């Protein structure tokens, strides 16, 4: 076995070590923290490259695995392990590269923060958990890392803990994702009991390998569903929570309370995509069916529909947001929906390809947004920006590339990956609706991104106009330092070119994941439905860009308080979108209220029913003892006293007789004798 496979564990453990050391370091050892984090991350990236090259050279389809014993129960061992296959290698590359970029960027972005050291500790911990999640060869190990990335997400959303909104958002994120995680946990223990192992691959005995899958698909639950479907749906619920799929998406926009590098790394590129990665990892389970040749399993249909609905739902909301990061957050939710859609209709390669391209262009956009926020002195409202293209040229150029990639502008990376999804959706056997939803989402994407870019970079600066509202002394926006723009530039290159790895003419990505050599041929474009879909999506993108420019670009908003163009056209619909379809309000009025109500009921039960029963018992006992005491005083004692009285008065009476005088004794004796004689005589006579 190759050195890199045996030592794959080093990739997550190095950042974990950095996190541990930084946690013990003093608050002011900033240079130490940053150097350690970036140093270990670079080493991890180096090892990831080694792993990638190893897979590239090896070209074997069966994953290379290393399993080890963790704990023992009964006569079996619970084993964990790590694995290396193309999917792992690609994710390792992406996660470690984006992480490194964000780490470097953070040195500039967080330079003035008091808790700089702590920030790098949490970031390293996150990277460790995320990389562990990627290499895990056991659903349990994956779940453990899954929870740990959730923890770091919680810690980093609430990084500015003194802001109540940040503390609340952190809590909301953790709890919302945990709802999904409970389903995941149940699915996992169910899978464990059915398959007898949680190792994905174990030379034919893993739970994602033939015999176990067939066993799962062949059994049915009491409601007639295959066991494999039930487990797959439960695991997918976990993925929905982490990847912000409707209806568990509510936490992700709020998570923007965290520092922007965190949003870029965790809430755009890596952690939120973990749900998609999970579905890809357990894809054999998702797609297994017993015998019958149906085109899509129930689990995959669920993935498809949830993904398609999320893609449009979030894109609609993004249209009406004003916070630069929240627009990107809803865009992320929408794009995660696309990835799910891609997994559902096209399989692992389609979904994963969009995951990878999205990771680069979305982290680019977030870091660009961070640069804008930094330049505008912590302003996040796009209505108060404007005209930044002249003041922040590098940010503008890179942001533009990211935006075009996200919109799916031809030849940019997002174009190829989104197109693959739409192409797969158009050929889906069950229904055409997901395709139409996806196409509509693409239109919305192009539109809201154009709206955002127009507000931020075009027109005249509206920042000064809002100064009277108390934002401090007027300051002109400035370009960010090179420690921030350098990662932007590098990410922009990826956003531009990465798509070339998965064009129809050279589907290298698809081939790499399936372990076959890729071949170059323009004939790929001529396959059924490729060109029509490509053309129609191009038209859609241009339509979105055009409408956006027409509404926002050539007539920029005059000042920060002017109503949105859409608002003047459709006030009610705009209000509905701006308020995010009132989902938060709905949850507040239902689940949260029920929960609070039930907590009160429980407390009430405790106080009055259980406590009341005890109170009644104790008072019954007290009553009984009172009764006993009063019986004592009034019946027993009185009776006793009276008895004593009787005895003593009787005694007194008798004591008169015993007076000690001999004459009276003799008198009595004589009287008695006379009586006796009389009695004998009388009886003798008879």
């Amino acid at each position, binding site marked *: 076995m190759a050195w890199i496979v045996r030592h794959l564990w080093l990739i997550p453990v190095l950042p974990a070590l950095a996190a541990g050391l930084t946690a013990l370091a003093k608050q002011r050892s900033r240079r130490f923290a940053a150097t350690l984090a970036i140093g270990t991350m670079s080493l991890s990236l180096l090892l990831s490259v080694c792993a990638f090259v190893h897979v590239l050279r090896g070209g074997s389809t069966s994953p290379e695995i290393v399993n080890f014993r963790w704990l023992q*129960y*009964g006569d079996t061992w619970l084993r964990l392990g790590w694995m290396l296959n193309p999917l792992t290698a690609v994710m390792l590359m992406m996660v470690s590269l984006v992480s490194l970029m964000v780490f470097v960027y953070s040195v500039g972005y967080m330079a003035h923060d008091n808790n700089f050291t702590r920030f790098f500790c949490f970031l390293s911990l996150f990277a460790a958990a995320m990389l562990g999640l990627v290499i895990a060869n056991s659903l*349990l190990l994956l779940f453990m890392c899954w929870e740990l990335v959730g923890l770091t997400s919680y810690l980093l959303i609430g990084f500015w*803990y*003194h802001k109540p909104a940040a503390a609340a958002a952190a809590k909301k994120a953790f709890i919302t994702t945990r709802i999904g995680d*409970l389903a995941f946990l149940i699915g996992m223990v169910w899978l464990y009991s059915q398959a007898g192992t949680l190792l994905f691959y174990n030379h034919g005995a893993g739970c994602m390998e033939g015999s176990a899958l067939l066993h799962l698909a062949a059994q049915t639950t009491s409601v007639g569903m295959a066991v494999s479907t039930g487990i797959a749906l439960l695991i997918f619920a976990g993925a929905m929570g982490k990847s912000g799929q409707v209806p568990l998406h509510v936490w992700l926009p709020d998570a923007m309370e965290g520092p922007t590098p965190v949003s870029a790394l965790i809430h755009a590129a890596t952690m939120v995509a973990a749900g998609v990665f999970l579905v890809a990892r357990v894809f054999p389970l998702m797609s297994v069916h017993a015998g019958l040749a149906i085109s899509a399993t129930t689990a995959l249909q669920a993935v498809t529909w949830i993904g398609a609905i999320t893609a449009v739902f979030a894109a609609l909301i993004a249209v009406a947001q004003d916070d630069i990061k929240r627009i990107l957050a809803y865009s992320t939710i929408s794009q995660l929906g696309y990835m799910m859609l891609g997994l559902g209709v096209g399989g692992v390669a389609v979904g994963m390809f969009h995951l990878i391209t999205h990771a680069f262009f979305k982290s680019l956009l977030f870091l660009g947004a961070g640069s804008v926020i930094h330049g505008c002195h912590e302003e996040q409202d796009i209505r108060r920006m404007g005209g930044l293209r002249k003041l922040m040229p590098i940010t503008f150029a890179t942001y533009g590339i990211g935006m075009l990639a996200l919109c799916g502008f031809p030849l940019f990376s997002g174009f190829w990956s989104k197109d693959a999804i739409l192409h797969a959706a158009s050929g889906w056997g069950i229904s055409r609706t997901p395709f139409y939803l996806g196409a509509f989402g693409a239109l919305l994407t192009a539109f809201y991104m154009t709206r955002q870019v127009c507000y931020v970079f075009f027109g005249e600066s509206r920042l000064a106009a809002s100064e009277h509202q108390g934002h401090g002394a007027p300051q002109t926006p400035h370009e960010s330092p090179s420690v921030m723009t350098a990662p932007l530039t590098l990410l922009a290159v990826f956003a531009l070119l990465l798509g070339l790895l998965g064009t129809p003419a050279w589907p290298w990505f698809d081939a790499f994941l399936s372990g076959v050599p890729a071949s170059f041929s323009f004939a790929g474009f001529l396959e059924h439905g490729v060109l029509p879909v490509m053309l129609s999506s191009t038209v859609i993108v241009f339509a979105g860009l055009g409408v956006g420019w027409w509404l926002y670009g050539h007539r920029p908003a005059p000042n920060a308080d002017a109503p949105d163009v859409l608002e003047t056209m459709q006030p009610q619909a705009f209000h509905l979108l701006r308020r995010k379809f009132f989902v938060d309000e709905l949850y507040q009025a239902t689940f949260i209220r029920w929960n609070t109500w039930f907590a009160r009921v429980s407390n009430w039960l405790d106080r009055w029913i*259980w406590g009341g029963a005890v109170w009644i018992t104790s008072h019954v006992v007290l009553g009984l003892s009172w009764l006993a005491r009063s019986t004592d005083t009034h019946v027993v004692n009185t009776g006793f006293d009276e008895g004593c009285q009787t005895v003593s008065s009787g005694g007194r009476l008798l004591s008169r007789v015993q007076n000690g005088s001999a004459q009276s004794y003799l008198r009595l004796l004589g009287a008695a004798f006379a009586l006796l004689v009389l009695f004998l005589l009388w009886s003798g006579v008879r």
Partner: protein
Amino acid sequence: MNLLPPISLLTVVPLVGALAVLTLGRRDSRMARTLAFAFAFLALAVVVVLWHWFNPTAGGLQFEEVHAWIPALGVEYHVGIDGLGLLMLLLSAIVVPMAMAASSRIVERVPLYFSLMLMLEAGLFGTFTALNFFHWFLFWELSLIPAFFLIRLWGGVQRAAAATQFFIYTMVGSVALLLAFLALFLCTGKFDFMDLATLAQSGQLLSSLASGFALHSLTAGKVGLLLCFGAFLGFAVKVPLIPFHTWLPNAYAEAPAGVTMLLTGTMSKMGVYGFLRILLPIFYAQLREVRTGLLWLAVATIVLSAYAALAQKDLKRIFAYSSINHLGYCMLGIFSVLKWTGDNPALGVEKAAALNGVFLQMFNHGLTAATLFWFVALLEKRSGGLRGLDDFGGLRKVAPVFCGMMGIALFSSLGLPGLNEFVGEFLIFKGTFPLASWPTSVSTLGLLLTAIFILTILQRVFSGPLNSKWAGMHDLTLSERIALAPPLVLMFVLGVYPQLVLGFTNSTVMQLVRHLRF
């Protein structure tokens, strides 16, 4: 090791310590404290030596001592430990010094306080090692009496009511337990747990009950259930299971923090221990008849207590309900193994997983809950006794290390992977799901609710703008950090390497599973 009887010696150490603290430390409270710590650490050292000598693969009882005592009454001095006993000894020996360290706010009658603590420890050691009902029951009650006085004399404002409630409540349970065992003795002539378990396994227990109660109209099965219920009551109050729990929030809240740590860390485990050592092996058949009801009782305990925790405002009361919730998982694990599985080896493995999980959970909960109450004590020390959820705010700014260290304990309680409690909970869920799918699924709700109230604590106490009242609060001192480090390190160690415990419990679990096949 053959020269001295190690277990009797272990039980004697804290008793001698209690006397020493009372006599030598009478004048000088500093001396009393030092002596108490010395004896607590000595006991810990003895337990560690026992652990070192313990054969982890044997499974059965080790270090057994059997001496005839009152042969006519079936009473003999019989002590010994298996994996379960050793685990509980370790836990008690670890929690007692922690509880002593958390008692720095005690200034009145210091020698008496520490001597009572050591007496309680002796009671715990006796309970976890005794194998004959007679002296087991003595120790069981012996631990109750110091606890009563510790609450009654050093507790909060409502200590009198809380202590009385605690004492009487537990006493009612104990009386039921005592009656049940007297009845068993009358029918079988046995007081020894092992003998009784063997009788139960061979079915003779039921037949002797039939002959013992032949005069009455009750059938043997009914008598068995009745006796089982009596014993059940004794343990259910101690754990506690809803609805036998109402003494707990008051007792935990009113007791001084060190005593609360002992109550939750060790005494609540006496109940679970009773279920595992006594109730399961002896009354297995009877419990199985009411299995479904018991399972849902455990689920109700988990869910209702978590909801009740959500409604509390006092940190100690939150953790008190959380304690009920965590032990609910143990109960779920125990009741799930009542399922009749015959000789199906796959389900036998699930039972082993569930019971190993229960063992781990007992230890982990003891460690984590005690640590959490310790943090509450440290907080009270700084706030002058305030401990309401809304009394603070933004403390992380002035006490970042406090927040970080307490955060570790809180996340351990939440069941975060990488920390100790996750492993036990996972093993319980893993084992119970195939044995009782629906109760297991419903009880995961408890995990969600735990997350909600734990994160609410972090949000209200440590986050948000700093409450100006506490601007001068000082962070953990160096000595406090050093004292808190061992339990926190142990949380990490057990989270990453649970085999440290499972290595010696598993063989005991396997023996128990084999025993429960009748």
